[in-house]
């Protein structure tokens, strides 16, 4: 049969942003994919070079609008490392709690849109968004922003959490635990979902490593790799949690890893809340933003974090008050690169199940 070329995007509801795919199909089978990115390129790395350190977090948050806090924290952490600033103990726990809540919110959004991609329109989506709204409400009260927060400061946080924060956080994780457990009945026991995800879009362990994917995609392929375990930051070495991994590397396994991660995040939050409550000094305030902040040492710094989508990394060559160069490793960039490897040979109808399972965010890729 002859090859037919199908153009998808750049504006398309299933690409979750501006992404163009030129797909060659032979009948129903994908023969080749040409992935075109760059439609959202804003040159954030260059913009950072012309701004003092604390002018940059608002840019960093727009790199990943689904989990803005995580990129914000990554940047502030690299500034802290460059300037040699210690983070207050209380602030370390609060950061861990907020970042895990951010991970839960991000996974919940992904789960809803992923099931939309599979054709289960807006049923699960309504459920996950209800839970996500509860998380965002708490984050809003703590970080004083609904979608973008800019609440990390060098050495700590912008403001002290409200007095009822711990109570509300405990209640919220209880609520999340009971609600998210219910999804299992709706998703895992759904034969249509299983047929559309099991043995679809398989990425083998060897290929996952070779193609440089990270985060849940890598763990779904059976690689035990989590920055929180392999290079613990903050107090992650004192917290008990496990890293969910699967073996097959198909769409279902990537879903399952994220699903289980929500419960691990809940475990982490509970332990951090306990630890924070038992602290004598609950002060979390960081340095105020001033025109001239602490001076950075000139040695390059490299900071890695386990973001909801995979490993985020900043390599920064500092000047005293601003970055000389800041290079990002964005998780979605490498994950999308593997799309061609995963999807070639699959059926065309499975393309968006595979793309959805990679959980990409386009501004993260285009920078």
């Amino acid at each position, binding site marked *: 049969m002859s090859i037919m070329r199908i153009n998808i995007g750049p504006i398309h509801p299933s690409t979750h942003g501006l992404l163009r795919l030129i797909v060659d199909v032979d009948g129903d089978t994908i023969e080749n994919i040409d992935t*075109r990115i760059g439609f959202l390129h804003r040159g954030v790395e260059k913009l950072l070079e*012309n701004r003092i350190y604390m002018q940059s977090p608002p840019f960093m948050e727009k790199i990943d609008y689904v989990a803005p806090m995580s990129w914000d924290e990554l940047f502030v952490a690299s500034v802290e490392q460059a300037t040699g600033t210690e983070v207050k103990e209380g602030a370390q726990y609060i950061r861990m709690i907020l970042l895990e809540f951010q991970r839960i919110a991000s996974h919940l959004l992904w789960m809803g849109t992923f099931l939309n991609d599979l054709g289960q329109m807006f049923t699960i989506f309504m459920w996950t968004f209800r839970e996500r709204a509860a998380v965002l409400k708490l984050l809003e009260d703590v970080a004083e922003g609904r979608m973008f927060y800019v609440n990390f400061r060098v050495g700590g946080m912008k403001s002290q959490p409200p007095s009822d924060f711990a109570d509300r956080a405990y209640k919220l994780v209880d609520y999340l635990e009971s609600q998210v457990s219910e999804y299992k009945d709706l998703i895992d026991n759904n034969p249509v979902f299983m047929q559309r995800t099991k043995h679809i879009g398989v990425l083998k362990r060897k290929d996952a490593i070779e193609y*440089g994917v*990270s985060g849940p995609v890598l763990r779904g392929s059976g690689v035990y*790799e989590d920055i929180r375990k392999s290079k613990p930051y903050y107090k992650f070495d004192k917290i008990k949690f496990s890293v969910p991994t699967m073996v097959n590397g198909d769409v279902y396994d990537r879903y399952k890893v994220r699903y289980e991660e929500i419960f691990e995040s809940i475990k982490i939050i509970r332990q951090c809340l306990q630890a924070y409550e038992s602290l004598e000094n609950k002060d979390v305030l960081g340095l105020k933003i001033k025109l001239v902040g602490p001076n950075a040492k000139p040695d390059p710094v490299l900071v890695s974090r386990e973001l909801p989508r995979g490993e985020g990394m900043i390599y920064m060559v500092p000047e005293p008050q601003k970055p000389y160069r800041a290079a990002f*490793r964005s998780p979605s960039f490498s994950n999308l*690169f593997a799309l061609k490897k995963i999807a070639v040979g699959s059926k065309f109808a499975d393309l968006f199940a595979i793309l959805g399972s990679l959980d990409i965010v386009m501004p993260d890729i285009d920078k």
Partner: protein
Amino acid sequence: MEIQKEALVQVLEEHKRKGFDYLKKVLAVDYQSYLEVVYIIYNTDSKEQALISVKLPDTKHPILDSIIHIYSSSDWHEREIHEMFGIAFKGRENMEKLLLLEWNGQDFPLRKSFAWGAEYKKKE
């Protein structure tokens, strides 16, 4: 670890044999008198990380060996560095623009010599 650019392929091949099977990132920095390319590689079993950097003193026509045959994931990273810093990579195909597909500027945006505010035309 800093190495000579001629030794790059050999050093990375050796590292890969030793178990550094995962390429995290390839990045470049423009220090004006020279360019530096940094390879961040990782051992997924022993959880070790290594940084290998190469200096390119010729900033007019910088050229480096491609490592795409060692680490497939370097593909997009090399293309990005090519368009942002003008570093050419020997021994690979498809050096098409990646992020700046529709941009027709002649300068390289992440070089320090890049003219801010200059007007560039969109490709016809």
